[in-house]
């Protein structure tokens, strides 16, 4: 006798899991964008801060000053602008499809 409900394959399980985490194509894309934004934000901040003490040699003091102090906050502003635009586009698409 064959079982009425065959055990789900591994592939099927993974698909279900993915569906559970990402509940729509738009959300998946949006979530990716958010993840990219956060990773970029974190990496750039951390790398800049870790390197800052050693920037003395590279055209000190202007390089360190401009790169760390003026560069980082302006980078945040650009990141928010660019990613927000992309996310808003996706949101519109999401609204149309749902």
């Amino acid at each position, binding site marked *: 006798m064959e079982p009425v409900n065959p055990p789900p394959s591994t592939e099927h399980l993974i698909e279900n899991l993915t569906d*559970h*985490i990402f*509940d729509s194509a738009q*959300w998946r894309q*949006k*979530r990716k964008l*958010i993840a990219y*934004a*956060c990773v970029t*934000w974190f990496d750039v*901040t*951390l790398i800049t*801060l*870790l390197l*800052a*003490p050693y*920037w*003395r040699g590279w055209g*000190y*003091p*202007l390089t*360190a*000053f401009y790169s*760390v*102090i*003026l560069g*980082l*906050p*302006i980078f*945040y*502003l650009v*990141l*928010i*602008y660019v*990613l*927000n635009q992309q*996310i*808003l586009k996706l*949101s519109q698409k*999401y*609204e149309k499809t*749902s």
Partner: protein
Amino acid sequence: MNSRFLLFFCGGVIFITLFFGYEGYRAIPRETMGYLFLFLTLGVYALAGIYFRTTNINEYYLANRNISGLKNGMATAADWISAASFISLAGQFYNLGFEGYAYLIGWSGGFCLLAFLVAPYLRQSALYTLPDFFAHRFPRPSQNKTLGPNLSSHTNIDTDHANLNMRLTAALASILICFVYVVAQIYGVGLIVSRLTGIDFTIGIFIALAGILVCSFLGGMRAITWTQVLQYLILILALLLTLGWISMKHFSNPIPHLAYTQILAKTQGLEIQNKNDSKENEIRYRYELLVLDYQKKINALPQSWREEQNKHLFRLNHLKQNNASFDLIKKAEAELAQFPKNSEEAVVVWQKALIEARQHSHSLNDLTAPANNDIREGRWFNFIALVFCLMIGTASLPHILTRSYTAQNVRAARKSIFWTLFFILLFYLSLPLLVMLVKYELHTQLIGFSFDALPNWVLYWTQLDRKDPLLHLLDMNGDNIVQAGEIIFSNDSLMLAAPEIASLPFVLSALIAAGALAAALSTADGLLLSIASICSHDIYFHLFSRESVPRKRVTVSKLVLLVMAMLAAYLASLRPGNIVLLVEIAFSLSASIFFPSLVLAVMWRRANYYGTLWAMAVGLLVTVCYFFLTYPGTGGSPDSGLLDIGHGAAGLFGVIAGFITHAIVSSVTKPNPATDQFVAHLRRA
């Protein structure tokens, strides 16, 4: 209030400043000018408060959710730029040098987290307060009704959905954070009013309280939004006009940002000279000896405390027996009165003095690059930890999150974060310039001059607050010449004193004080309204009186606002510490309590009630423990910290602990599918 009115307002402020700066300033006494600026600005805020008064609940709590992205951004920027930013950050830059930039990077970087992870989703929830959000997203497991987007209409919330435990926990946490923050703001307001008018600090606090109440009491969020727009304009104009004036004076360029390299090169040259000066090195050596002395005394406690006390008693008796002058006896008595009462108090007082002496034993810190000894001493970890703690704190402050609810829609909420950061950067990127210009002034007008010919502003600022001096000038090596190491500015005085240091007309001092007042008032208003909204909506309405009509809730909110404002003013009058310290505590608390749960609420469907409660409790506990362990004021020692991370970044450990706890507890407890629809609704943002 349209754009034309705002342009007219800016023009008016510039005209008044230029008029009194060029023509009338000699004819008008300082006190009159101070009173004029105090009452003129308070009058404008009061008019806005009265004009936008309301008893409509939506207008009172959320400004009817019809604020555009640009205006909401400007109001949020004013809400954000607090007394700590306006008054104390310049002092931090001066005293800490490059290390002070942790605040700039941290406070601006947090807006990325706010924009991507929190604000749009809060707006999408269309609720009223932060505890409201927690109550809807994390209901108790027994509440198995499906929670859909319609929950956003608060009038339809039934008792089950009120989720009292979660609501109350989030409400109390929000009130605690806002209250710590508001005490710091009111302390700043008192400082400014006493500076503007010359009246006593405590009276200054209660006068300014009237200014706070007149904005928020009558019109709630609707009035606050518009007064915050005006307050932002005043504070940014105050900074830019002062900067432009000093820059024009020295570099013939009214836009100092364009004269950056010139300013930098000149200040840098003077600082290098100062570092190599033998007299400066002598001062630093004396501070180093002081550090060793305090260290020795702390290690030898309680014996050292007894010895020191005996020394003071012996000296006093000796003076009395030898019929010394009245002044000397009085001084010795005052020293004895200030001496720690027991060895426990001695640890706290001497640790604080040790840290201050250690700070002064370094040369005046460089603004353009981190000092080499910071890297060697491992203080760089503290810098990075502080940056991240401030970033996370920024994204979880209740009064900033509340502003997301006031935007017209999600699109406006996203845009408003961009504008907020834009307006904040306009301020933050100008601040280091002011500090450089002040340093340049000090090097050219004060350092190297005789103690007998000190400028008037030095005498004024050293005597303004005798209990907690804002400026110390002590001839450490007895050569009667002022050295850089002998000038000690408190963090809270440099910005307010900047126009006088640069010998600018008094109108600019009054304008800077008015700007600082605007910064402190705008933040205090936002914080008090957040507390009042939470008390009336989440505690009074949901806990005690579900049948109360909206008008009654607005009245309750106004009463709470009044009581909280009075209580905060009373605490501020006790001088609870410096502004930056209180702000750091508020950031650490908000980061550790709210951030993990706020992010996981949207990003992780499985995040549930138990995970949230545990994450909040563990985050708070870890933060408080780390703070007590490392803060000298509570008997801790900075040396007890992990990787030399100080008390200012205590929240970082709380956040990490909060995320881990949330993940573990939510994974091992049953998920709550009832919230799936609500999460799906949030994710459409």
